[in-house]
């Protein structure tokens, strides 16, 4: 352990920098959401969401249950397409894709570039190696490149030493925390620009949760992270930006967003203020 890594909370450091937001140039946003509306049949789940997601930062999406946080996340990689009655309207620019909601968007490539890690770890019921081979082969990565990518991403999530001698055994034999790190490594192996995390720690024990959280925080050097979390303390620790969702008029919507430190310390929206203080929601 060296002393520099002791307060291992990159969020705080970033927060310090954002204490003085005016001196910081706004980072370029990799995703920009305009007037997003999401419906399940007649039910409006999200209304008029506008959000800029800057690149190479951790954006935490928080809010009470049922305010559409996870639905919002699924719009960003069009996983909403898998739900029969679900319709997303509005505009979401992603990097050079002018509108990722457009029906002609190449979904396979979009989902390679915008990875996702779910609440419950979901390794395929195959060997650890096959968990990497399947998606990587699918995206045309040459066979001889796969072991290298697998090793480097497994190292990145601190799993390599634990699994190096059992790559051919079942991924489901791993503990919950290891499975979740495997899923993060599997998403990373596709070299995405963004990874969406949908409450990635809430199905894990506190110990594993802490380890997974550290690795997520460390990812922002190479990918943009959007994380939905119920855990305000976690958001506090790792987020550079905070987006607070709330239910207004029966539909989820974004009520406040900005640099995490600023939103935590001086929220402008009264509901957001009560929620972040733990008094509501």
């Amino acid at each position, binding site marked *: 352990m060296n002393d520099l890594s002791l307060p291992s909370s990159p969020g705080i450091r970033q927060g310090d920098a954002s204490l003085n937001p005016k001196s910081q140039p706004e980072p370029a946003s990799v995703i920009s959401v305009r007037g997003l509306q999401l419906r399940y049949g007649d039910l409006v789940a999200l209304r008029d969401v506008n959000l800029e997601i800057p690149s190479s930062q951790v954006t935490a999406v928080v809010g009470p249950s049922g305010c559409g946080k996870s639905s919002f996340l699924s719009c960003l990689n069009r*996983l909403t397409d898998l739900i029969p009655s679900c319709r997303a309207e509005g505009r979401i620019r992603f990097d050079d894709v002018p509108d990722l909601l457009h029906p002609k968007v190449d*979904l396979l490539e979009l989902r390679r570039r915008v*990875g996702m890690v779910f609440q419950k770890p979901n390794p395929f*019921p195959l060997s650890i190696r096959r968990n990497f081979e*399947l998606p990587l082969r699918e*995206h045309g990565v040459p066979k001889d490149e796969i072991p290298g990518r697998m090793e480097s991403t497994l190292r990145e999530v601190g799993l390599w030493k634990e699994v190096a001698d059992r790559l051919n*055994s079942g991924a*489901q034999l791993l503990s919950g925390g290891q499975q979740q790190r495997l899923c993060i490594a599997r998403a990373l192996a596709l070299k995405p620009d963004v990874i969406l995390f949908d409450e990635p720690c809430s199905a894990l024990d506190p110990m594993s949760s802490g380890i997974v959280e550290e690795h997520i925080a460390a990812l922002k050097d190479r990918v943009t992270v959007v994380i939905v979390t119920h855990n305000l303390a976690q958001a506090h620790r790792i987020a550079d930006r905070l987006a607070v969702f709330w239910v207004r008029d029966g539909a989820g919507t974004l009520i406040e967003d900005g640099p995490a430190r600023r939103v935590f310390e001086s929220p402008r929206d009264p509901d957001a203020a009560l929620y972040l203080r733990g008094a509501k929601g």
Partner: protein
Amino acid sequence: MPDPSRHRRTRTADRLLGALCWASALAVVAVFLWLLWDLLSQGLSHLSWSFLTGTVEDAGRGGGIAPVILSTLLILLVCLAVAVPLGVGCATWLSEYQRPDGALAGAITKAVDLLASVPSIVFGLFGMVFFCQVLDLGFSITAGGLTLACMILPIIIRTTLTGLHSAPNELRLGAAALGMTRHSALRHLLIPAAVPGIVVGVTLGISRAMAETAALIFTSGYATRMPSSLSDSGRAMSVHIYDLAMNVPGGAANAAASAAILLAVLTAINFTASKLSDRWHAKAVVTR
């Protein structure tokens, strides 16, 4: 304090229930053993190597049943070659490509269920008209196999559907989120997850097909000579047993012997199928 007599009463009820369950289980085993005893006591003396390899003589009273066994296996082969891909394909389409509440999917599921409840004699008549006459296949192993395929299709569709539905949705979401095609998710994740279900369907289908008489008399016919091609008429084992038992005086012993063989073949197929599926599953899907 609980009333002691009440306590005794509940204990008696408990014991009675246990005894009833034991009795039912024993009754099932007894029926099976009796059946087996009946078959073997009548047929065992007629079972021999030459019975397995010989041709049918004297309308089945003498000789062996080699052509019957071959015809049965050929009919089964045609039946499975058609029913398995069609059934698995249809179930996959229903489960993965259609909304469960869709009108077309609903209509097809209803049709499948209806098909499952159609008596086999109706399949026989349909097969005779459609395969033998309209498609001009005549009394043939092909016509019989196709008729049986129609009959076991609903079983295979149903069990494959159950298998696919039991595959966790996380597999679909996970694969989609990694930018995998639906085809590849099906091939590598969902169909393998459904394999135990498919195997159950195929074994049930085989059992139903091998036991079938009514659907085959009018379609594959009852010629007892050795079939030389799929367009030959061929007598299935159950048809042979039926014929010996009903139409041939003095054929009862050979009927029992044939039935014993049929039972042995069915047991062997069931056993092999479950072994194969276990081995395949252990190799393709690591779960333990």
